């Protein structure tokens, strides 16, 4: 289940990273934004759980589009450090606005799922987790289809390969960037909205999520959706193994050790044939 979430986060980040060359520090905030919207819709406005999920994702897309439009559009062509600092500033501002709006107390969200687990043979799975897994897979497939099968997706891939050439061929770069950032943000918000009800929602939840998304991106290689998917599941698997066999305290360290190892052995990520950026 966590694998699916990591993959969702990773896909969003890898698209933004690969296509726009923006290290998106607000990614974790969009994740917690999704979770908080879920909380607001379900617990305060009493919206149906499933409708709320869709709404939270839509709000994430809108917020992502707004960030792209307000902050990043002006910085087109600025060097990667400048953009990164602006994103760090946005991240600090957003996280503290969230803390101000929702206070530091952890929130929990009621789910419509029965609390008795589903028993399949010798395996028991909680309904809510099964739901998260299925929706995450569906979203991954949808994102893949969007990038691989549609006109917009083709424009995205062209921009990834060479943005200047794509522009010369008549691709509307502004539109590609806007939709890439909105899509990535929407996936992050969806990940938060899915996972929020399973655990609890806190203002700092985005930080670790963002770091793990970075890990997934490195594992999979920049700009590769398939890589991010496999990377997400791999990271979750290794974390569980690490927690089970080494020490649960080092659970979160496993991913980072893995990154360092991958970069020593294969610096461009496990699934990328693209050359590294220099």
């Amino acid at each position, binding site marked *: 289940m966590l694998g699916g979430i990591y993959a969702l986060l990773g896909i969003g980040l890898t698209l933004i990273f690969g296509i726009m060359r923006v290290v998106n520090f607000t990614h974790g905030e969009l994740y917690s934004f999704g979770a908080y919207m879920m909380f607001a819709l379900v617990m305060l406005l009493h919206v149906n759980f499933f409708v709320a999920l869709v709404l939270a994702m839509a709000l994430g897309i809108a917020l992502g589009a707004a960030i792209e439009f307000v902050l990043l559009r002006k910085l087109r062509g600025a060097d990667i450090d*400048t953009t*990164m600092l602006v994103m760090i*500033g946005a991240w600090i*501002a957003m996280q503290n606005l969230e803390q101000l709006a929702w206070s530091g107390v952890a929130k929990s969200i009621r789910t419509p799922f029965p609390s008795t687990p589903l028993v399949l043979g010798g395996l028991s799975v909680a309904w809510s987790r099964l739901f998260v897994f299925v929706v995450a897979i569906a979203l991954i497939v949808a994102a893949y289809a969007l990038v691989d099968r549609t006109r917009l997706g083709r424009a995205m891939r062209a921009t990834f390969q060479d943005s200047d050439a794509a522009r010369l061929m008549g691709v509307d770069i502004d539109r590609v960037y806007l939709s890439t950032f909105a899509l990535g943000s929407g996936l992050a918000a969806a990940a938060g909205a899915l996972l929020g009800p399973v655990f609890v929602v806190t203002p700092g939840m985005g930080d670790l999520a963002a770091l793990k998304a*970075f*890990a997934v991106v490195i594992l999979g290689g920049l700009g590769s959706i398939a890589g991010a998917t496999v990377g997400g599941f791999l990271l979750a698997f290794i974390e569980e193994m690490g927690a089970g066999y080494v020490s649960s305290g080092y659970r979160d360290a496993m991913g*980072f050790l893995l990154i*360092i190892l991958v970069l020593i052995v294969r610096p461009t990520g496990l699934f990328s044939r693209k050359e590294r950026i220099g």
Partner: protein
Amino acid sequence: MKRLATAAFLAFLFSIPLWVGSLYVLHVLIVTGIFTIAAMSLNLLLGYTGQLSLGHVAFFGIGAYVSSLVSLGFSVHLAPNWLVTLDPQPVWLGMLWAIGVSGVCGWALGRISFKVRGAYFVIVTISFAEVVRLVALNWDELTQGPMALNNIPPLTVSIPGLFEFSFIGKVANYYLVLIAGIVAYVVIARLVHSRAGRAMIALKENEPLATSVGIEVTRYLVLSAVVSAAIAGAAGALYAQYIQIVDPNIFLFIYTVTMVIMVVIGGKGTLAGPIVGGLIFGLLPEALRSLHIGPELQWVAYGVLMIVIVSILPAGIVPALAGWRRARGPAKAGLGDAAEAAARQIAR
């Protein structure tokens, strides 16, 4: 003229404890000073070699932990029946150890991570800091984990039989940090203006060109990483002996961010940049605090201000001022030309 200005600035800094009575203001200045030293070390990497390291706080934290552990003493099982014990050592020795261990870590990280550039490098350095934080949090036999290391002794200098002096209190620590800052500045300035420094700048400006004239890329990058890490470690050790408590929160990402902000806002690749940036962003949170608007809004204002400054002055304050002065004086050669000249000089 420039020398006079420097002397006046130093005299001003040295005179501060004489006319600032408030211990709180001195405390803020000490912490600002320590972070400015760390920012100066980061500038060596970020400004002069152009590598954006977002794991710099790792070296700061390692320095703090190593110096504290050496001066407090520890005993730890490296294997189930292999107990390593160290009795408490003098603090100055701990600080030397801190500098050494940070430098070695900088070397190791440099060897691993300079294989990659750009976004990948950024992520490796973030990961490194996170791993170190988790180790500090979980290896509680050595680090006490979240219980923190307490009662770290202050730095004491003594010549046996003659005199002994402990850096206790704000005024003594203020001068200690000031002097350490001057030493760090001189070390960095010497390095930057040496052959190695010119090689680093050439690498930043145009890596393929620098390589083609025979500059060993990895060697100079690793050298800058080692020096940078060692100075950051020294800053961490100063911090530990001043605050007298170290916990894993010292590795939080926000501290790295603070250092990066100081360097970039001040002006990366200039010697004065981190100092200007350090003073502004060390004192800004305190200035915001005096507005009485609550901690969250303070941080929101901090973030927004950062976006605004970076958008207006992408190169930083010091280069902007220099550019403004240059516009009124005779035109100078562009930076790219300078890099190529440096590359030529080194190749010779």
